[in-house]
């Protein structure tokens, strides 16, 4: 095993959570966009964006290595910005959201995991850099 693996210790739990969010967000947005995109284009598109971000982070975490770690870190930051932006947007302008997204109300429908996940992810990815190079 390489020393720059990100899937070890807390990273394993993180990959599980990101994997679950990927499966959830992807199936949700595929279903929504395929069956009733016209009803609420904005929320469904944003759910699809969230899905792509989750899949990419899961992939980079599993792949490991310094480049992947940086990419995952940047995506977690983008994810946090997305959650906060969409979350605030849904609170201030509910009319734009006839249906909710994964990131609506800061991830209320997903037990607030969407807002907690990127923060824990970034903490782990920072620590992974300090611990990793011992080869």
């Amino acid at each position, binding site marked *: 095993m390489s020393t720059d693996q990100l*899937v*070890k*210790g*807390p*990273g*394993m*739990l993180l*990959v*599980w*959570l990101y*994997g*679950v969010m990927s*499966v959830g967000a992807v*199936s949700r947005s595929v*279903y929504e966009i395929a069956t009733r995109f016209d009803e609420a284009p904005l929320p469904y598109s944003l759910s699809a964006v969230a899905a792509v971000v989750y899949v990419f982070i899961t992939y980079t975490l599993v792949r490991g290595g310094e480049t992947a770690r940086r990419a995952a870190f940047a995506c977690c930051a983008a994810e946090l910005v997305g959650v906060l932006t969409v979350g605030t947007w849904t609170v201030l302008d509910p009319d734009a959201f006839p249906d909710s997204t994964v990131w609506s109300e800061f991830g209320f429908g997903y*037990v607030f995991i969407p807002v907690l996940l990127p923060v824990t992810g970034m903490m782990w990815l920072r620590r992974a850099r300090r611990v990793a190079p011992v080869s």
Partner: protein
Amino acid sequence: MLNALTLTVSLAALALAAWCGFAAYRDQPTKDWHFIGMAVVTVLALAQLVVGVVRLAQGGEPDEGTVIFVAYLVGALLSVPAAGFMSLVERSRWGSATVAAGALLLAVLEVRLHDIWWKG
């Protein structure tokens, strides 16, 4: 859906989550007994899937649609085994924590399954 079965699966999943969460708290990896527990919970989730499919075959109509209903049934079946396999790779407290998270997810999925089936 069978309410009694949904409740049984949920409670068993919560018990498994507490058990593995305790192992993580005590800094222990998952052990054989945990895997027997996961097997029991998985068999219950499989029974739930069978009951759900039989109900559909009998002409039952889930409130939020058949596709979503079946997707949740399959997700519920897979959540604990997937976390179990990951805990085989990660032989530390974090493997136990992953199984606890998988079991919690199963409990949440059971609640959602109940919502999807019933008009409410």
